[in-house]
């Protein structure tokens, strides 16, 4: 074991951290806006990645437009799910469990639909800034990974501003924290929930587009992404996008150190055990914010 190896592992871990964080951010956004845990957030990523591949390769669109198509597809799926499934269930006041079962069922369905329509192959996208790598202290990091980290941070900043400074952002929070109160001051709660799903879907799709050049996109990768993203979000206190980044870093870095120090087969055991310990011992997340138990 040498220092180059540790640096290399940390950089691999750093990249993974932001992948988990991006999924976690989407989960946090949807939980914050609807009090629903979305077990198909990883499948928004699959939709976004697949549609971008379709736009770029099959439809021959320029890269930017293909990405726009992917993000639009994620947003549209979010809206569709809200209108078709969530709305009727809210109307009959379904339990927490029912929403979880719904999103698990949707994850299963979307994965199967992508398999049916798009096939079982894994697809790659060219990286942003090309497929090159940069060398840092003898270790390598792809240029795209640096873009991924930068864009993730931009998303977090954007969300921070959105939720604090814009009417829409504030209304979306109000609608979930106190639906009756929000209604009484003229906020359309159902519409805000729709916006939340659109936002969550778009962030999920963006995550998918950003990870595809690194790990490729295929129909069955959704659930795995969701679980790691959820771990990141939980560590961050579940409603806080910045917290999800912090959570992602803890999960991603401890995983990569587990590979160096332990057998790599137990990588996920380490990540998930951290998540379980956090849930039991620090139920409000690393940042200690409230609003963890709600539902």
């Amino acid at each position, binding site marked *: *074991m*040498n220092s*180059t*190896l540790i640096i*290399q*592992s940390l950089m*691999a*871990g750093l*990249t*993974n951290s932001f992948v988990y964080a991006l999924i976690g951010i989407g989960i946090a956004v949807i939980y914050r806006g609807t009090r629903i845990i979305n077990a198909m957030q990883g499948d928004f990523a699959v939709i976004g990645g697949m549609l971008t591949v379709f736009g770029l390769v099959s439809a021959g669109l320029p890269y930017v437009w293909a990405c726009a198509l992917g993000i639009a597809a994620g947003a549209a799926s979010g809206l569709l799910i809200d209108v078709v499934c969530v709305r009727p269930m809210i109307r009959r006041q379904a339990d927490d469990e029912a929403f979880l079962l719904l999103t698990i069922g949707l994850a299963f369905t979307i994965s199967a639909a992508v398999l049916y329509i798009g096939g*079982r*192959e*894994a*697809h*790659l996208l060219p990286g942003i800034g090309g*497929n090159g*790598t940069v*060398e840092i202290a003898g*270790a*390598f990091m*792809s240029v795209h990974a640096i873009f991924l980290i930068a864009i993730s941070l931009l998303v977090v900043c954007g969300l921070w501003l959105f939720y604090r400074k814009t009417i829409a952002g504030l209304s979306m929070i109000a609608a979930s924290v106190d639906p009756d109160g929000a209604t009484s001051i003229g906020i359309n709660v159902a519409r805000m929930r729709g916006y939340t799903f659109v936002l969550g879907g778009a962030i999920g799709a963006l995550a998918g587009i950003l*990870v595809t050049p*690194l*790990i*490729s996109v295929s129909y*069955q*990768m959704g659930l*795995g*992404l969701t679980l790691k993203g959820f771990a990141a979000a939980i560590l961050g206190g579940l409603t806080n996008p910045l917290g999800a980044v912090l959570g992602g870093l803890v999960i991603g870095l401890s*995983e*990569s150190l587990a*590979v*160096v120090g332990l*057998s*790599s*087969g137990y*990588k*996920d055991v380490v990540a998930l055990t951290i998540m379980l310990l956090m849930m039991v011992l620090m139920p409000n997340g690393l940042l200690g914010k409230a609003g963890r138990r709600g539902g």
Partner: protein
Amino acid sequence: MSLGKRIFFGAPALAMALIGASAAAEPVRIGALLSTTGGLAGLGIPQRDGVLLAQKLINANGGVGGEPLEILMEDDGSNPDAAMTKVNTLVHSQGVKAIVGPTGIAQTVAIGSVTQPLNIPVLAFTGIGPAVENARNCVFHMTPAQGLNARALLSYAKEIGAKRVGVLHDSGYGQVIWGVMSKLGDEFGVEFVQVEKFELSASDATAQAAKVKASEPDAVIVLSSLATPFRNLRQVGLTAPIISVHGTATYEIVKAMGDAADNIVHAEFLIAEDPLPYQVEFVAEFQKEYGRLPKHFEAAGYDAVMATVAALKRASSNAAPDALCQEVRTPYQGAFAQYDFTAKDLGGLTLSSFSYSLLTKGKFSRLPFKASQ
């Protein structure tokens, strides 16, 4: 009522027309149990293509002694439980004479407990596995045993003078091969300087790849059926040669490797760009039927049906299963390689069965090297 999925090409009518049969010919039934969905579908689907091609050609040329060949196609979803259920259906309800498949090792081990007591021949797309299989003399193996795969890879490492070798393997297929390879280092003068495993479901193995790279190996052997490790090895800047087992020598996986695919060496069997004389006919027929080049999994599927039919033709049409099993047990020249089903490993492949290919821009080209015992 059978709920199973049946694929039955409209060939019997054609076959009857060709041979001018007067009596309604009772089809000869064999089962094909493949993993066409689930984790092994990347292997099962090409095997199915080969199986269907063989069936079509056989029925176009008079079937099995005048009777059409019917293949009952079942998918085990890459799941050994499902394989057990399906094999029971094929054997007990459908009365198939032989089984082509399964795709996976676990499935092969599982169904052997059903077919062996009945002496029903099974032509599996796996190498001989755990000890229990040694006694199963009607389960034949269309692909090399793990020890042979390991030797083929190490032969090439030795050839290029690699002394320090890194290994990156997945937790499924790769782990099984590594189990055998780990004991062969001394025999080939190779030291395994770093061995790393990643989960079958992993979408990223960069950390493991980094660990392998950090050991500064002369060459890296990859044991996997996934594209992920190749991409990751290149991402961490590995420049040493990569030697890979035949599982990743398919156009589909190579495509998923992206830029990383260049300069990977595979120890494999069918280089369709430059086929060996005994492979030319199969490659031509396949290309005519499907409009693309086959790899060895398609060839194995084709060979399994052809070898079964050859045995059926030698046995009488109502031969008992053990007689048919006896007829399969013979040397057979396939498109995959020269088989010898009388061999102790029930497949008879040897180091000289292997060809070595180099990948350049998604195309395989033949390397001059040939391994010998």
